């Protein structure tokens, strides 16, 4: 995309996060969408583009009473919303539509009208992975880590520190699910889920949603909210099977997506004031920091455990508490984007002082896909 031509003008999460069995999944999309429209003074009649994942754009547009000229149902897992931002930016620049609504809602905990997810026994994963007993992400997304640990000497203590540091951030966030401080010992003493992963190294399972509204940077100045400009975007996909990931110590999708976003933005890593890396499990920020190029290969475990990502340090990371402590409905990418927008607006609960550039980096599936969005609060 062309940097600085598009802005996020509306952003909101669902009114409630956590455990909300009183509303179904599609209403979570709608609740977040209505909150985002209220945020920037729009109604459904003002929206002419819709993108979503989990549900179809048809369902969301109809439910909200929107007549779109553009629809995007890209669904590559939890980073789908990063891809929606990227696609929406291109669509608006091409004149396909002018005002795009991106929605997420997921009854991850309560399961009220949750869209079914099942792998067919005829699919490649159904034939060549499921017979060996994996039971969802905690037993699959985690498989590469022992290889990484052997290659680079990452320790279980360093893995635990990812959760400890993010809990420190969560403690500053009133909406975080878990705010009580934890220690490395707490993490290492928590229940073993799938060696070497313990409970506190795994994300939450909660209900919630979020929505974003994008328009051209020219129009953004007319909105009541502080515009957040899109500087650069990237996306890629690699494999639907964790066993077929090319290298268990680095994600190709992360590298391709990250490089494209930074190339578009024309910025250096040192220019980044705030960073979100989708953390479904404790190793994700480690892979993300390295594959985006913030640190060298094998250095991220030490970088985090030496407290370089805490409040006041050089690279504030996952400042909402992340999927490990803030919330995780299943497709967490929307919440990473929401926190980047809050930081760029200057209204985050744990605000990074004078932050001007934020990066939100997402994963989809289990290292299956990736999306990267670089934002700035400085007018073009």
């Amino acid at each position: 995309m062309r940097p600085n031509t598009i802005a996020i003008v509306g952003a909101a999460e669902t009114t409630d996060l956590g455990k909300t069995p009183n509303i179904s999944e599609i209403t979570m999309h709608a609740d977040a969408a209505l909150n985002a429209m209220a945020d920037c003074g729009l109604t459904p009649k003002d929206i002419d583009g819709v993108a979503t994942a989990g549900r179809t754009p048809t369902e969301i547009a109809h439910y909200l009473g929107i007549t779109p000229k553009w629809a995007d149902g890209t669904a590559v897992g939890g980073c789908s919303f990063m891809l929606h931002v990227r696609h929406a930016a291109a669509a608006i620049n091409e004149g396909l539509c002018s005002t795009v609504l991106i929605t997420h809602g997921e009854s991850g905990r309560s399961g009220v009208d949750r869209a079914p997810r099942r792998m067919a026994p005829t699919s490649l994963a159904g034939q060549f992975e499921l017979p060996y007993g994996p039971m969802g992400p905690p037993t699959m997304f985690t498989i590469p880590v022992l290889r990484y640990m052997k290659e680079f000497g990452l320790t279980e203590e360093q893995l635990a520190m990812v959760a400890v540091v993010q809990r420190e951030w969560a403690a500053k966030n009133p909406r975080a699910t878990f705010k009580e401080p934890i220690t490395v010992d707490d993490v290492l003493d928590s229940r073993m889920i799938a060696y070497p992963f313990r409970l506190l190294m795994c994300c939450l399972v909660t209900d919630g949603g979020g929505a974003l509204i994008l328009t051209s940077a020219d129009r953004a100045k007319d909105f009541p909210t502080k515009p957040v400009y899109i500087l650069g975007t990237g996306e890629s996909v690699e494999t639907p099977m964790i066993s077929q990931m090319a290298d268990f110590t680095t994600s190709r999708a992360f590298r391709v997506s990250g490089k494209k976003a930074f190339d578009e933005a024309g910025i250096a890593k040192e220019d980044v004031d705030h960073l979100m890396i989708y953390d479904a499990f404790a190793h994700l920020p480690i892979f993300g920091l390295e594959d985006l190029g913030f640190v060298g290969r094998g250095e991220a475990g030490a970088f985090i455990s030496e407290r370089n990502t805490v409040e006041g340090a050089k690279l504030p990371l996952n400042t909402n508490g992340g999927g490990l402590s803030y919330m995780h409905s299943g497709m967490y990418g929307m919440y990473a984007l929401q926190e980047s927008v809050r930081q760029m607006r200057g209204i985050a609960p744990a605000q990074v002082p004078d932050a001007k550039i934020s990066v939100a980096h997402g994963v989809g599936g289990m290292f299956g896909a990736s999306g990267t969005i670089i934002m700035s609060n400085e007018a073009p």
Partner: protein
Amino acid sequence: MAEPGRPLPQPTPETQHFWDGAKAGELRLQRCDDCAHVYFPPRPFCPECGSRSVSVFPASGRATLYSYVIHHRAPPGFEAPYAIAVVELEEGPRMMTNIVDTPQTPEALQLDMALEVAFEAMNDEISLPLFRPAEG
């Protein structure tokens, strides 16, 4: 470990040769006739160069342990704890499997240890390629 109850594959036309081989005690891979790339999972073309000219051949069955987790809660057909592993075949490709005939512990399961395929019949049609520590 292989009791009834685990999810079983349903072969498709493109993968039938693999499951026929497993039933016959043979681990079958594919090789590109044009660029010699060896690949898995099965498909009727080469993912390296796109050629449709590919051949099925029997692999050695030798592999090394690439990575794994040890799951502590058992679904039907499994006894916890059990390792969900990825092995690297001698010919290059990797595949998910279970490691049998050895304790399911970090001490017993050392990365890069030598393994060999051990087929286990699930029913008349499906045998799964599992791996055990290589002898000698």
